[in-house]
């Protein structure tokens, strides 16, 4: 049977796979535990699903533990998540006490003795309080844009995080004032997943037909939740400016943002802006429609992610991986991924977005070149193998604190 590493080898190259094997070999038999709050749904669960088989193939004894909590607990952690992203939320002392109690209960329930523990996000952060002796090194992995966290919530969380041996952030701007080494590990995508694997033309056409998307004009696509930070209304404005000059159609694909108080209003605005326009299609898909999203991205001519606020922007990474020209809002990690005329275009307004769409429609050869460069950029920096490599390097560095250069 072909292993995942063997399947990844033709995609990332034998040098990369060989490097992972050598690093793992140098580390020797290590035990690693990842802890998060859900087995499915969301980027963290997706990453862990991709990474776990690779650990096993590399000889790392890895486990994935999921904490359990009641509805109140997850309401508190959702509020904490929003507060870390800078939103004003009310979190009472009672809510924080409940959060601590659930962490304590999980500490009693979870059974592991490990060399390394990677705790993902705030939900299980306080496990360290009761479980410190159960692992040699504790690493906190923050996937959230914590560049402007709410002071009260961060001060509460910091009490736990400061006890860790290291923390990991996704962007330099998310780093915090902490008494231990902080590392940058960019998020990644799995090229073998349903969302990113290669599809045949037949598979793509079948999905288009099933979703009722005609391919009679160039397709502009944005895949995102219908919330204000993704600016779907701005995309429609841009599209209408383009269509006044050049025939094309717009696909807005995503799900409603149920946890965003503005979500229903934004979705209503999108429907209103798209009403009566046969060239605009709004598709509400199930959150697990990865295969369909893959096909839509591969069928599109230009992919837009006109965010006005963004964490890292993995939808941009996914679009780049499909070799498409991508136009993104100049926000968060999109700025890191898209470089004008190189790996994509950055824009700051609906007008800018329209300008770049028109440019690409008239210069498809430039779009093809940018798509090729974008795919190589992703191959080198944003695939799951790089994430595994970074974790291996981190384990080596964590075991040798104080060494800025570690030769193995």
């Amino acid at each position, binding site marked *: 049977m072909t292993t995942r590493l063997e399947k990844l080898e033709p995609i990332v190259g034998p*040098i*990369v796979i*060989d*490097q992972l094997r*050598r*690093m793992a070999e*140098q580390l020797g038999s290590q035990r690693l535990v990842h802890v998060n709050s859900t087995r499915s749904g969301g980027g963290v669960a997706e990453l862990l699903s991709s990474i776990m088989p690779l650990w096993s193939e590399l000889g790392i004894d890895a486990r994935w533990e999921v904490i359990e909590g009641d509805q109140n607990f997850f309401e508190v952690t959702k509020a904490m998540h929003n507060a870390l992203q800078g939103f004003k939320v009310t979190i009472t002392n009672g809510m924080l006490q409940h959060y601590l109690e659930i962490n304590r209960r999980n500490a009693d329930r979870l059974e592991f003795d490990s060399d390394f523990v990677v705790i993902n996000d705030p939900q299980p952060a306080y496990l360290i309080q009761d479980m410190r002796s159960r692992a040699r090194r504790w690493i906190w992995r923050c996937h959230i844009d914590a560049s402007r966290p709410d002071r009260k919530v961060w001060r509460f969380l910091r009490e736990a995080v400061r006890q860790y041996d290291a923390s990991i*952030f996704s962007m*330099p*701007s*998310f*780093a*915090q*004032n902490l008494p231990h*080494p*902080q*590392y*940058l590990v*960019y998020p990644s995508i799995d090229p073998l997943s349903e969302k990113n694997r290669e599809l045949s033309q037949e598979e793509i056409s079948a999905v288009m037909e099933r979703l009722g998307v005609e391919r009679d004009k160039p397709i502009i696509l944005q895949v995102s939740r219908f919330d204000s930070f993704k600016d779907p209304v701005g995309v429609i404005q841009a599209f209408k400016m383009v269509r006044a000059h050049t025939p094309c159609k717009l696909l807005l694909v995503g799900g409603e943002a149920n946890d965003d108080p503005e979500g229903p209003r934004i979705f209503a605005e999108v429907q209103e802006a798209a009403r009566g326009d046969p060239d605009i299609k709004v598709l509400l898909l199930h959150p697990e429609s990865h295969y369909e999203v893959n096909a839509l991205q591969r069928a599109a001519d230009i992919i837009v992610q006109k965010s006005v606020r963004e964490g890292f922007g993995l939808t941009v990474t996914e679009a780049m991986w499909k070799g498409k020209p991508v136009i993104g809002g*100049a*926000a*968060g990690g999109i*700025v*890191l991924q898209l*470089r004008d005329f*190189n*790996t994509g275009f950055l824009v700051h307004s609906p007008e800018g977005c329209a300008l770049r769409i028109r440019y690409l429609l008239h210069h498809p050869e430039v779009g093809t070149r940018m798509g090729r*460069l974008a795919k*190589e*950029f992703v191959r*080198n*920096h944003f695939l799951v193998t790089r994430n595994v*490599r*970074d974790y291996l*390097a*981190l384990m*080596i*560095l964590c075991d040798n604190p104080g*060494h*800025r*250069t*570690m*030769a*193995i």
Partner: protein
Amino acid sequence: MISADQPAPNPFWFHECIVMTMPTGKKAANLRELLQTLREVDESVLSYHLWQSRVAIAPPDVEYLNDFVAWAANSLQDSRLAEKLSVIDPFGFENLQEVRDNLVDTLDEYLWDLPSVPWARPGFEFHFCEASVVVLRSQISARTLSEFCQALTQVSRNSIYYHFMDARWRLRSMKTDDFSNWIVSSYDLPDLVSALQGIDVWFYTLEEVRDAILNLVSQYMEKTDDNPPRET
């Protein structure tokens, strides 16, 4: 010219490195803050933004020479400053303190003549980072120039970076590198060494650096039958 199969006294062992970026938490929102922070930060921060970032997160096409130039151009949108900073070649100095002095002097002089301090838009601040590095010995070595060329095509980009760029800082001599040192100690090829050290790395991606080195070494090698690199 030298025989492609003439053995060197000691083989060249290829290493590779993983550069792990470490945000310092310090940031600059305008040019004055950049200048002030540049005066204070550790040299490890300078080396990160001058060359380590090239392997940590390398664009597929090199447009700007280092992070400071890119920030001036993209975030301050000050092309004149980007042009001025582009002239500073870190490998043209004896050490990082001299590079820092030159950067600081250039920025100070530039600010002196400006009527107002240029600001980056929110979200485009300069975030100062440094790095920790894990160095791995690869399983590839070369004992002849022929093996060296074959090995160069097989090693990772990180390996090219480690031996050709990182080496200048590591060896405390900005003007030499591991490849040049090996050739100096193995063969009487001063022109090749000089040509290697003359490669203007700042405008090349690591893949292009690899090709440039291969091209140069090939020119000084008498062709014989292919000799595969040593793997142990």
